[in-house]
């Protein structure tokens, strides 16, 4: 079981703050593709990703118990 957190725009799109799913073992890239298909979340491709509060890249493998945060960049100012 892994814990997925959505922030900012993605939280609204997903309609929820978090998700608990059986996806340990897949990479961030695979996870993004799965979320894109299942939840139709936009722009996941260029979304920053953190595993257990540390940013990481798309080829990282998630392991059991990890918390994965998806953070869409904010551009206003």
């Amino acid at each position, binding site marked *: 079981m892994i814990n997925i957190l959505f922030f900012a725009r993605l939280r609204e799109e997903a309609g929820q703050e978090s998700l608990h799913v059986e996806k340990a073992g897949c990479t961030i890239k695979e996870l993004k593709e799965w979320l894109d298909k299942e939840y139709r979340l936009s*722009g996941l491709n260029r979304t920053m990703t953190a595993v257990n509060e540390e*940013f990481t890249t798309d080829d990282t493998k998630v392991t059991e118990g990890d918390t994965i*945060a998806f953070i869409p960049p904010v*551009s206003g100012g």
Partner: protein
Amino acid sequence: MEHRYSRQEQFAPINKEGQKRLLSSHVLIMGCGALGSACAEMLVRAGVGALTLIDRDVVEPSNLHRQNLYAERDAGGTVPKAEAAKERLQKINSFTSIHAYVLDAGPEQIDKLAPQCDVMIDGSDNFDIRFILNDAAEKHGVPWAFGAAAGSVGMSCLFLPGRTPCLHCLMQGMPDGTMTCDASGIISPAVQMTASLQTAEVMKLVTGNTEALHKKLVLFDIWNGTHQPFGFSSMKQQNCPSCGTAPEFPYLRKKNRSRIRTLCGSNTVHIHPGADVHYNFPLLEQHLAQHGEVKKNKHLLTCMLPSLRLAVFTDGRILIHGTNNPEEAEAVYHHYVEKAAYTVEKEPET
């Protein structure tokens, strides 16, 4: 009476030594919108020695709800933000030396100004500028404080050349589909919170408290109460074109920025015909006066067209308010402005 910095010197990590450093530091703020205004005010109150302000825009009524340096009298659409900001800031602290540039700064200008300052603050509203700042920061070894806010969300992060990964490493290229003030609106507590995070890091840096630097990207949403730091130390890419072993600073090389852009948070199109384009202002005024009321000051000329408002800057740029449509803006430019244009070779005014 106690002196103006007494309560700041009383804060142990700053004390008299840190205050002295602050008083002789030079900060560059790129953009005098919401975040730029807020950071500039905090730093000028704190006693920063010199401040370089850069902004290409004029103050509009829709800026007032979140841009803390401007009052109603500035918001007629003819006063450049950098000028209005400087005026208010000098009333707050007449000892800070403030350089205000009314300028659509691109790679050339930023490359020139970056090495003159101790730290740069991102007060911009787009990643085009941020990637230029990032390249200039890495090239000249100048730290910079990224900040962005939209809706009730904000993020902030200090990048330290040679000591942290850079923006390019972190985002792995220019992001798209980002949250803008146009789409999501913006509330002032989100602005002040983001600017506070940026300013605190800058204050640590210029007062010599480098061991206290956060070295995390903070993301918050002040409406739903989340506030979360994220580490990014493992994101360093050895082959990063901006900070890797053989950097190319790609965003400092791009001269061909898009000529026509829609501005974040306002129903406005910005046209930059090129650094060497200028106008015959008497001719332009004579021509425009046939179509609507013309006003002018030393920075720009404005004209109220039937459904749009046109602002032509002396440095060649045009703002067309009242449209989000680049094609409509282009047509307006051709119809009303282009015939008064001429081309000269000129140094960027830095």
